[in-house]
């Protein structure tokens, strides 16, 4: 337990908490844009960028690596858009292609990096599954600042996001440019993904964006409350998952965060008061009883 008191752990804990909140918020936007799996494709597409940045600068500077990740994920997004809009291949196939090919390229580069460079390469493997515990002070600070930035942008422009998602025509009438909003949305989405990949890893980063909003849906129908809940779930997942993963030597962080989120989802699915399984079952039984009573009344009336 002594690890829980170390200041480095407290920083990492805080940063994954903020990361969870930011992804919970952005995840809601992605959910209503029907682009949940887009985040999966983009997080995989970030891997070659990380490796190229490392090969170019030969150092593990967080800023350089996430800049590389950002550029390559952005190129991935452009490719998906290009394939979707110019050929008859559908969006999901386009996402699958970009995901697999970029990740393959990333693995090719990762192998080269592992083979060629000396001692300072250590820790690049962690981009696959994430290793929050091994992050150092300056990385954590950077990650926290960027995640806070994302959170603030989403909260400040809450009304605009709502219009952007649910009533684009009305928004146009108010002189709100949809192209700008869409651009901002993609920038925030990619930013959240790339700051998350060092902590959670490229393979499971998408879970942090997908599971919180889906779980929140079981508790409320209001968009605002859903955003708040999704942020809370994301934050909880990040914080609890990180804490568990520091208990074992070299346990990967990403899977524990995802499993925590998965448990939150399971609880929501069972006990959620909107479309939760138990509530639905009770409603169903009440309806059945009512029906039975009615039919027995009818029988009595007939006799």
């Amino acid at each position, binding site marked *: 337990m002594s690890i829980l008191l170390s200041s480095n752990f407290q920083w990492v804990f805080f940063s994954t908490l903020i990361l969870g909140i930011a992804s919970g918020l952005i995840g809601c936007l992605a959910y209503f844009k029907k682009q949940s799996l887009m985040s999966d494709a983009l997080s995989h597409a970030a891997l070659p960028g990380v490796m190229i940045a490392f090969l170019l600068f030969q150092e593990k500077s967080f800023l350089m690596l996430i800049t590389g990740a950002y550029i390559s994920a952005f190129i991935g997004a452009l490719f998906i858009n290009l394939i979707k809009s110019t050929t008859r291949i559908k969006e999901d196939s*386009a996402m699958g292609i970009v995901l697999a090919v970029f990740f393959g390229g990333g*693995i090719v580069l990762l192998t080269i990096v592992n083979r060629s460079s000396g001692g300072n390469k250590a820790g690049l493997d962690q981009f696959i599954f994430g290793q929050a515990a091994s992050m150092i002070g300056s990385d954590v600070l950077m990650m926290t600042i960027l995640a806070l930035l994302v959170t603030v942008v989403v909260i400040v422009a809450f009304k605009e996001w709502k219009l952007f998602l649910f009533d684009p025509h009305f928004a146009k009438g108010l002189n709100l440019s949809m192209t700008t909003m869409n651009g901002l949305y993609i920038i925030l989405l990619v930013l959240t993904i790339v700051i998350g990949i060092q902590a959670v890893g490229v393979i499971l980063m998408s879970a942090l964006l997908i599971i919180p*909003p889906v779980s929140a849906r079981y508790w409320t129908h209001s968009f605002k409350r859903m955003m708040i809940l999704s942020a809370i779930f994301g934050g909880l997942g990040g914080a609890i998952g990180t804490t568990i993963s520091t208990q074992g030597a070299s346990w*990967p962080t990403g*899977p524990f965060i*995802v499993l925590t989120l*998965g448990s939150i989802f399971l609880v929501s699915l069972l006990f959620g008061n909107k479309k939760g399984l138990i509530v639905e079952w009770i409603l169903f039984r009440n309806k059945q009883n009512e029906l039975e009573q009615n039919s027995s009344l009818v029988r009595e009336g007939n006799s």
Partner: protein
Amino acid sequence: MTYTGWILLTASLVGISCGIVGVLLILRRMAMMADAISHTVLLGIVTAYLLTQSLNGIHMVIGAAITGVLTAYFVQWLNTRGVQQDAAIGVVFTTLFALGVILIATKVGNVHLDVKHALMGEITFIPWDTIDVPIIGDVPIATLTLTFVLFLVLFVIVLFYKEWKITTFDPALAASIGIPVVVMHYLYMTVLSITTVAAFDAVGAIMVVAMLITPAAAAYLWTDRLFVMFVLSAIFGVFSAIGGYYFAVLIDTSISGSMAFATGVVFLISILFSPRHGLLSYWIRPIATK
């Protein structure tokens, strides 16, 4: 046969099986389902290992096929309960995959089975792990498994060729003339899972996704006929496997990563030069016909 020969044969078998299975994946718009299944089979493999304590091929195939079908079932079930299809896929596969990774990290302990192997495959080890087959002699186990899987895939596709065609292009018609659409869906999911797990050993989980989706999508740009698409997709798969191998040897890097990358190159060529759907033909076409 030589060491390189076995590797190329095994990789080509992966290319053909995945290429053929992938065609239906693209046409049924379930590309991301392949991504999901290729991740969740890891859980099936780990569970099979924990239950039997052996890395025997047949247990793994069964375990993986079960988790694959379960994944498909969960996604379908969440979807009918009002979760968007892609969000449902995202929830199910990330959770099950995370569970698999955690089981490996905590219970199995990186000795016999490690995550990196599962993700990237270790095709270079395949020729060492052989089994004695009458008449032919020593054959690598993975190659033998993949040959069986290829025959299974071909058998299922050829046997129900007409049914696949109708359920893929017009499910409503298929249902109205009495073809069990749901059964066909789960049969396909089973075939997909079995192919995925067999290819797992050779090229790893994520590369299976590349082999399943990309050659078929490239073939889709060249033809409108289902049969031709099957053949082209298989050819593209083999081509990427062999090309990827030599590229990997050339620059001395991960073979499976390089194969996945090669499928991307095939796709890029297709998207540029395909006569009807390619970008080049789109740009040089007279404006009136656009």
